[in-house]
């Protein structure tokens, strides 16, 4: 972990600035309610900018950042970037595949990627289990009335 994560403060200020800039285009006050649609977002955006600057000040003063504890997290909090990358790939995969390939294939892919992130080395078993579990979920939740799309949207099924 970097000692002085200024980028956190920069991100907060940046997002606050975007919110403020978009809100500034809206009317801040109107005739009846006296407070227009732009007032609250402007205030929130401004608040974020101020908080981001405060955070930057804290970081400058060397405020410590301790990682949160969680179950199954190693004592030493050592970061495995390979595992992080695999898990991140699993959370990004649906953006690419959900529309063309459908729920079942997407979920199978996610399942295999997450299992690999957690150091499972039995690819074939993961694939079979993932496919089975995804199919089961798709079928079950469809029965319960949740819209999850077709089995293979590309082929019109």
């Amino acid at each position, binding site marked *: 972990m970097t000692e002085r994560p200024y980028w956190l403060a920069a991100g907060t200020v940046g997002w606050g600035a975007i919110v403020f800039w978009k809100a500034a285009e809206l009317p801040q006050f109107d005739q009846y309610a006296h407070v227009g649609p732009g007032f609250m977002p402007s205030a929130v955006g401004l608040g974020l900018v101020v908080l981001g600057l405060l955070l930057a000040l804290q970081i400058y003063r060397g405020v410590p950042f301790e990682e949160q504890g969680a179950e199954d997290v190693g004592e030493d909090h050592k970061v495995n970037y390979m595992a992080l990358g695999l898990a991140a790939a699993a959370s990004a995969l649906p953006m690419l595949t959900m529309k063309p390939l459908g729920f079942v294939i997407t979920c199978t892919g996610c399942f295999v990627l997450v299992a690999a992130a957690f150091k499972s080395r039995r690819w074939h078993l993961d694939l079979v289990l993932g496919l089975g579990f995804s199919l089961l979920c798709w079928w079950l939740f469809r029965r*319960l009335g949740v819209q999850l*799309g077709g089995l293979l949207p590309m082929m019109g099924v």
Partner: protein
Amino acid sequence: MDAITGLMNGFSVALQPQNLFWAFVGTFMGTAIGVLPGIGPALTIALLLPVTVYIEPTAAFIMFAGILYGAMYGGSTTSILLNTPGESGAMMTALEGNKMARQGRGAAALCTAAIGSFVAGTIGTLGITFLAPPIAELAFIFKPQDYFALMLLAFLSVSVVMGTSKVRGFIALFLGLSLGVVGIDKQTGLQRLTFGVPDLMDGVEMTVVLVSLFAIGETLYVASRFGFQKPNLNPLAGGIWMTKEDWKRSWKPWLRGTLFGFPIGALPAGGAEIPTFLSYTVERSLTKHPEEFGHGAIEGVAGPEAANNAAAAGILVPLLTLGLPTSATAAILLAAFQNYGLQPGPLLFINSADLVWGLIASLYVGNLMLLVLNLPLAGLWVRLLFIPRPYLYAGILIFSLVGIWGVSNSWVDLAMMAGVGVLGYTMRVYDFPIAPVLIGLILGPMAEVQMRRALAVGQGDPMVFVSTPLSAVLVAVSALILIVPALLQWRRTRKIDMPDETAGV
């Protein structure tokens, strides 16, 4: 309708076979997720939201309440037998309970935890039964400025109390507020912060944010720092039941724990952690067996367990009567009410009396079910922890996709899942509290409505926000919450800085 008739009506609803079934499903799932890592009550309810569109509201809320109570029971089981608290409220239980289990007194610890939870849950539910209707009546005379002041207090206390740093707490809150303003403004029909994306016109979906922050953020975080120790199960030797001595030493901590848990749970940002900690500290100072503390004192299990269950009951009071969520779980329950087009608050007790009283009655039923589910079956629940982690977390991700994709089949939601998931990861690494984001997201738009209403009534005069006694008091308390800790810290740092300065000179 007074509380007794209401409750009787409620029982006639809760005891219908299909509602009993949903209460069982809820308590069963609640216990399971209380045992499992990586998934808690808020996330579970969020994932079930799309399903509930097809279940009638009373049944859905009975199930949700079962999940809320059940998670507290499940958390205690793993704390005692494995020293792994499944929920943050069970941390104190692990201290003494696990020591007891190691001495072969695990059964007695489980017993006092389960019965204590039952006692506290039942007393807490009695508290809801008799306190909620008068508070709801009170809410009728609330003006918009009172509501606004109440929400302001909730915002401030959530951000200040949760987490270690106030600045980070407020950043989390403002992130939530900024997501809350996205969408079409209800009063003027203008688009706000939609960036021209049609999917964002309805606003940011609570479920998507909650699931991404909890499930995706947690998966990324745990995967990157994975260190799995095989659970070390303590055998359940030494008799199933508590001895007479155990009973004698347990009943007072149960009651005291309840007294801490219920009111603190009902306060904004009270949560379950503070009362369990308080209860533990008090039992430690009151005990006649101080030498046992730290080595398996039964009071140290009985008190905190009662406190965390009573707190779970406590959070339902402001939620049902004022529509004010005080924790992540309460926030998602509020979102569930909104999904059904219901607005918690005083009118709920009149317009949906069956639902409210059925829900309250089901809490009594659910508590009894949990006692039966947990006492004899504790050994079985713990087996859940042996699920291989790759499959557990992969399964959680698939359920998350059901929850997110099932809401509206929107690609934007999937993109938000990845983005907010990374945010959740970052917040864990740099220790930002997560609950304020959700409170800001759901309460922000409500607070804005009340603010605009109050200003419209007051003809734009900002003094309207302190124009009623209640709003003035609440605003003053909010200001104190903000100023007092800052002053204390300023004094502390000055004390530390002073010698440095003189040393420098």
